[in-house]
């Protein structure tokens, strides 16, 4: 039975690790400026963890294979050095990994979430609601109008609760159901929720951020390739959570200018 256990663990280990290594299911290609840092961190962790996973499982299997009671009355053996090598090995190895990964990882994290707002960033306001995203651009005046939740009227497409009659800055705001952006342009999203918690996740950008009702949360990124990708919600928000979807459309600068001109013309 010990040998069967050993074989099972060994087979499971090799198969599991093999599927990771072969990247049968893997991350989509990264289309963001800072995603390379995340991918690098992930790979370092994957290699370090992978080695630890394979070695520890195979050692467990090997010991189970080797140290069954064969009824021969042989003496038990204590691990050489007793508990000390385990304590030292675990402490040193894990501490080194923690130091390295935390040091590098903090830079990656800081680059995404702690950078000051880029003055050249295109500012887009995002509202999440049950079960859709709406994106608001400042329009030709470069200013976003004030939001009044009590004025929200989906039937008349006033998703944000703008008051164009009394608020001149709101008159030229452009509202879109898709997040349309130019490639290689720093973007600043300011995110708020109309109702409950939601999240903004684009795997290809490698980033996500929760929408928290009552807060306006900034998120910065730069897309480096022209693409159309799905934006999905990762914060449980109700029965339509699985169907809550937007599209990120990264266009060339010219296509974006054309799109923006069309939006302005339609107002």
């Amino acid at each position, binding site marked *: 039975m*010990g040998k069967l*256990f050993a074989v099972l663990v060994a087979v*499971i280990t090799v198969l*599991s690790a093999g*599927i990771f290594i072969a990247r049968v*299911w*893997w*991350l*989509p290609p990264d289309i963001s400026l800072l995603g390379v840092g*995340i991918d690098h961190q*992930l790979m370092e962790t994957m290699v370090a*963890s992978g080695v*630890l*996973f394979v070695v*520890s*499982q195979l050692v*467990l299997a090997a*010991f*189970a294979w080797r*140290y069954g009671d064969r009824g021969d009355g042989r003496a*038990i053996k*204590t*691990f050489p050095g*007793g*508990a000390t090598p*385990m*304590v030292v090995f*675990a*402490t040193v190895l*894990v501490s080194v990994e*923690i130091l390295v990964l*935390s040091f590098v*990882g903090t830079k990656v*994290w*800081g680059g*995404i*979430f702690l950078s000051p707002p880029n003055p050249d960033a295109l500012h887009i306001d995002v509202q999440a609601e049950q079960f859709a995203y709406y994106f608001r651009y400042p329009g030709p005046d470069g200013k976003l109008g004030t939001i009044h*939740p*009590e004025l929200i009227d989906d039937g008349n497409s006033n998703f944000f609760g703008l008051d164009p009659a009394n608020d001149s800055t709101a008159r030229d705001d452009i509202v879109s159901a898709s997040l349309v952006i130019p490639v290689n342009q720093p973007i600043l999203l300011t995110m708020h929720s*109309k*109702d*409950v*918690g939601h999240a903004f*996740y684009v*795997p290809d950008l490698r980033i*996500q*951020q929760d929408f*928290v*009702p*009552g*807060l306006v949360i900034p998120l910065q990124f730069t897309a480096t390739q022209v693409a159309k990708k799905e934006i*999905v919600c990762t*914060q*449980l928000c*109700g*029965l339509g*959570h*699985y*169907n809550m*979807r937007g599209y990120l459309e990264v266009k060339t600068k010219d296509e974006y200018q054309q799109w923006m001109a069309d939006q302005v013309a339609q107002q």
Partner: protein
Amino acid sequence: MSESPAPSLTHVPPQGFWRKHVFSLDHKVIGKQYLVLALVAVVTGMVLSWLMRFHLAYPAASVPGLGAIAPNAAPGGRISPELYLSLMTMHGTIMVFFVLTTAPFAGFGNYVLPIQVGAEDMAFPRFNMMSFWVTFVAFLVLIAAFFVEGGAPLSGWTAYAPLSAVGKDAGPGQGAGQTLWALSIAIFCVGQLLGSLNFIATTLDMRTKGMTLMRMPFSTWAWFITSIIGLIAFSVLLPACILLILDRVAGTSFFIPAGLVISDRMQPHSGGSPLLWQHLFWFFGHPEVYIAILPGFGIVSHILPAFARKPLLGPKVVIGCMAAIGFLSYTVWGHHMFLSGMNPLSATLFSVPTLIITIPATIVTLLWIGTIYGARLRFTTSALFCLGFVSVFVSGGISGFFLAQPSIDTYLHGTYFVVGHFHFVMGVASMFGIFAGVYFWFPKMYGRMMNETLGKIHFTLTLIGVYCIFMPMHYLGLAGNVRRYSEFTDDYMKGALPLHRFITMAALFTGAVQLLFLVNLVWSRLRGAKAPDNPWEATSLEWSISSPPPFDNFGGPPPVVHHGPNEYGMAGPTGDYVMQVAPPSAAGGA
């Protein structure tokens, strides 16, 4: 502290059916009651998971009979998105609270701890009885959520506000169902607090002569540490649930800010913070997962040496590591909230202790592996589940290493990677600890041996099954597959459907295999071979008494202890081990 307990407990055996079997003050009966409750809960939770997995694999298919049971939630037998989320919410809640907190801690702890420390019963038998019945009522209140208008809540076992706090406007299940959920958990907290008090008092005050703290079995240490964690954790969850109920029914706004428009209605709340709920919940929630796993650490540390026929390597280190994990568990809760909108500077603050917890966890795992080096392993079913525990804990622990880093969590948060991780450590490792405990202590509890052949088949097929269910979830997570979705309609996720179908098949298969365990339990209870006092040749006090034990555990005078629990692999009066109650002249004598 190590004097004989004062004769404050009655020595008269209980009389009458109700006192003996229902409202019993006997910790052994109460422990079994908790275990039976956990068994009912785990079957319920498992059935819910089958429905979930079936829907994920075949979203358009009908479940035979479901349309008759739940015509609104499953018209024509097709599981609606809201029903899926309710099933998911209740699955998580039932499993975390009524299985993983109940069986390894309240169940086995209640039964075994007093005997292991040499006491006749827990310090407060009436509190003990109350704690079980309070927990039972909490379970009934939770199940009642299925039957009220709107059905069970759909906000997950984490019940984030404002979805969980605003009431009916937030959607189906968010009316009375959510209120019953919060009430159930609040009641559960009371039961746990009573239990924790009992465990702590019993461990500190009721140890028999010679049972110093360092001679306590590792399982007792684990239950003791767990009860301290629980006292603090449940003390926070209880007021959090009360505040949630107040937001829902009394018009307060602890968790709800101003200006929310839900279902076209302006919500009449202001001033609250959804993040406050998250902080309160996770301040409980992270220690809770260590409450779920530490008893398993203790059980494996206790059982493995008996079947390895050699002492646990580094016994004091193991105890120290369990205590360190318990302490550190309070410093890490924000790692559930890296992307929650709290200050990003706090990410490092929470990430570093989360990574540091890896150190004691790794040390203990290596010590278990070091224990079986040079051993003479007896591969009983209980031993196999201990070895399996080590394997699945490694798997689950390693995936945690990814999630502990905020920069990686940025990608993996909210994906199936997280689901795979926590199911390995909680749904599998903790369950394996429970199975190891059942196969180990069943002979003591019922005076009959379990069927080893059935047990070994159960173990082998379960080990294969759980890896087939939960390892693929890591692959799904890497591909960006989002969790808590009732269906995968996004283009980039559609390619994952074959893997989801594989997982579903594995889940249904593994669920079916558990029938072997149920059959074994029933058959062994009725027809199992008679169990001797000490079938495993183990050292601790529970093996020095009859199987099953007399009502007052030690049949009169309390035992006197001269040895620690770890004396295996040395010549003793009865074999290659020395029992804790052996005379001082026997080998060892630590």
